[in-house]
């Protein structure tokens, strides 16, 4: 399918004109504009009916449909043999650097967590260089992690400094290991087991396709998708418990903020990765795609899946255990 040496440069496939970029733009802009309008209606609106949700859903649908068409085109080009070895390498590089950018996105949230836990918290509680303001602004606040009491609760809503808005109420129970009744009742540990197993099963699927064993590939990949769904289900259960029984919400001060943003974005990425793997599974089972030496769609999705797993390991360590 591919020719090597000097001729591979001549075969670099530059696609003809394509409407997909413009369609994707329309979808993306409508969905972001719609999302911004929905949020503004919620926070600043007067309760009047607006078309914000409609714009958002239409944009999202249009965007998803375009991405579907886009990937379908790319897959068909590959099947038609248009992709040289060099173009395939471009896709590999593209996926690698995309994952790198995702790593940096999580880095921002982990950075916020570390900064709050090592510096901000102790300062607010009166320790160290920044601690001198404690008796002026947040008298009586004592720092601990998980944070049993927000600074606002320590001084009372009426006495807090002016540049603050919102009410932040601490929770009865956190998701940390220290607050768990028993290890086998601690949901995050089961989550960890499920997600780490799925990394192994996706690797088994990879071994299968490398051997040309489609049956093995389909089975292990199917198991991986199932484990991903189980993980998402357990996360939903965890969030339900947090809101319904622990009193742990987005408004629970910085512990709630970092907890929900880190696990929430991770969960969102799990859903994305699971969708990618599901599509690869459908391609293999229904479409008969993938051979031992041509399965980049699966490979890229599996890299993404491993990335999501590694993020979870850090989450488990820094959000749940330590």
């Amino acid at each position, binding site marked *: 399918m591919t020719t090597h040496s000097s001729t591979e440069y001549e075969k670099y496939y530059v696609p003809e004109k*394509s409407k997909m970029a413009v369609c994707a733009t329309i979808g993306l802009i409508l969905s972001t504009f719609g999302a911004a309008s929905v949020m503004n209606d919620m926070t600043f609106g007067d309760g009047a009916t607006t078309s914000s949700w409609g714009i958002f859903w239409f944009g999202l649908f249009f965007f998803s449909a375009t991405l579907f068409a886009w990937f379908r085109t790319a897959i068909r080009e590959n099947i038609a043999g248009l992709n040289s070895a060099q173009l395939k390498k471009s896709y590999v590089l593209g996926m690698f650097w*995309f994952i790198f950018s995702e790593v*940096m996105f999580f880095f921002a949230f982990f950075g916020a967590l570390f900064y*709050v836990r090592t510096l901000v918290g102790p300062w607010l509680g009166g320790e160290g260089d920044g601690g001198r303001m404690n008796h002026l602004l947040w008298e009586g606040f004592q720092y601990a992690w998980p944070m049993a009491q927000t600074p606002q609760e320590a001084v009372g809503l009426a006495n807090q400094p002016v540049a603050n*808005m919102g009410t*932040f109420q601490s929770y009865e129970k956190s998701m940390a290991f220290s607050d768990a009744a028993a290890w086998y009742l601690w949901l995050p540990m089961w989550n960890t087991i499920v997600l780490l197993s799925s990394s192994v099963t996706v690797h088994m699927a990879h071994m299968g396709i490398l051997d040309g064993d489609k049956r093995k590939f389909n089975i292990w990949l199917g198991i991986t998708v199932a484990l991903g769904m189980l993980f998402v289900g357990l996360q939903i259960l965890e969030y339900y418990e947090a809101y319904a029984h622990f009193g742990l919400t987005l408004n629970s001060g910085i512990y709630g903020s970092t907890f929900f943003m880190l696990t929430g974005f991770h969960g969102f990425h799990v859903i994305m990765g699971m969708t990618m793997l599901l599509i690869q599974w459908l391609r293999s089972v229904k479409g008969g795609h993938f051979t031992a030496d041509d399965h980049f769609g699966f490979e890229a999705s599996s890299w993404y899946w491993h990335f999501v797993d590694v993020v979870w390991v850090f989450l488990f360590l820094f959000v749940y255990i330590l």
Partner: protein
Amino acid sequence: MGAHHHGPAKGLSRWLFTTNHKDIGTMYLWFSFAMFILGGAFAMIIRAELFQPGMQLVEPAFFNQMTTLHGLVMVFGAIMPSFVGLANWMIPMMIGAPDMALPRMNNWSFWILPPAFLILASTLFMEGGAPNFGWTFYAPLSTTYAPPSVTYFIFSIHVLGLSSIMGSINIIATVMNMRAPGMTYMKMPLFVWTWLITAFLLVAVMPVLAGAVTMMLMDIHFGTSFFSAAGGGDPVLFQHIFWFFGHPEVYIIILPAFGVVSQIIPAFSRKPLFGYDSMVYATASIAFLSFVVWAHHMYTVGMPVAGELFFMYATMLIAVPTGVKVFNWVTTMWRGAMTFETPMLFCMGFLVLFTIGGFTGLMLSIAPADFQYHDSYFVVAHFHYVMVAGAVFSMSAAVYYWLPKWCGRMYNETMGKTHFWISFIGFNITFFPQHFVGLAGMPRRIPDYALQFADFNMLSSIGAFIYGASQILFLYNVIATIVAGKPTSDEKTWDGAEGLEWTVATPAPYHTFETPPQVK
């Protein structure tokens, strides 16, 4: 499907649906110029208000919106896309590639920019006005006290970031994968090198900016407390995250400018670039250091002394690789057979003025001294010497240098030189006095000021109008060249120019290097 189209399609669909790196580069360049004019118009309003002390033309609230939008539009709309446009045009031609590695995504990266800026500009007409918290959008100004339009601002930043990340991934894949046989990394033109490193910086820090605005969004609408001490967060956390993005960002802006200057100075000195290897290593060192100096923007925020010292010394270190660069450019000119056409004039202007900007940067890096300079007009003067005389001058140089290759017509040298001299003089009249008013204590981002700053501010405003007018001349020069410039078909417009882009026909055909050249 294997048929090759040798010319562009007709009509609007050529631009909407294109996958051609030259078309996309052209769109980026025109778009960025439009944004340059828009951001410039905001600057003119600022300078008109500051022409005299007292409130004359605009409300203070509107003045704040102008400073905010001026910064945002210039950084994200004018300078960054202009260099992406240049990268699109030049990188494939410089490394002997048929196009960018991922051409459809390339088109998408461009097309999401104009609507994102449309959303940003439309905030001017929203209830409560446009974002008014400065281009650095510090919390709580951008959270607790922000106008409702902040939500649209946040989403437009998300879209701009997406565009930058995709554009950068494309550039990295192109440079790593599409080089012609024999074009090893250490033979690449320096413009390609600086862009490769810039693209790496973009992929690394744009997601961090996305994280910052996402936290803002959550604080504003969903009750989180990342930037609110009442919930255990910290407004200073915002500054750390923002500047972790923001400091590499200033190198994202200036490194491609370094690349342009490193192409042009050797051409008009008729000598190879002095110290090519050290230029590459210096660029990489600057990029590396840019990740560990961010808090020098926040000396007065109340950091522990150890932090102040670390960030002070790390910042000073940047002067070393930057010094290597300036030394190499000067040494390239040493005993060269120099001529001073317009691109070279802009590069000389760059060299002198950027070095001044670098030195004021060194002054600002000293933490105890910065306590005096912080948030004064001295800072404004400093970063305009780097942003305008650095990035924008080199961009002007690049346009004059490659315009004959792009359109097959020669610009008018007299008009080009006139543009340079008016720019150079106007720029210095605008920004040099700002050093003095800043050191004397005039704060930045204020619509009114104490009487003792009146003379220098009037001078500064006059300079700004001159500089602004010179950009209209620039626009005229470019259009006059494209429409009625003297046709040229010399493959090599400049006798001292080196590089693969000068081996293809002039004007550059729609598709170049469909079969890769052999690089010796």
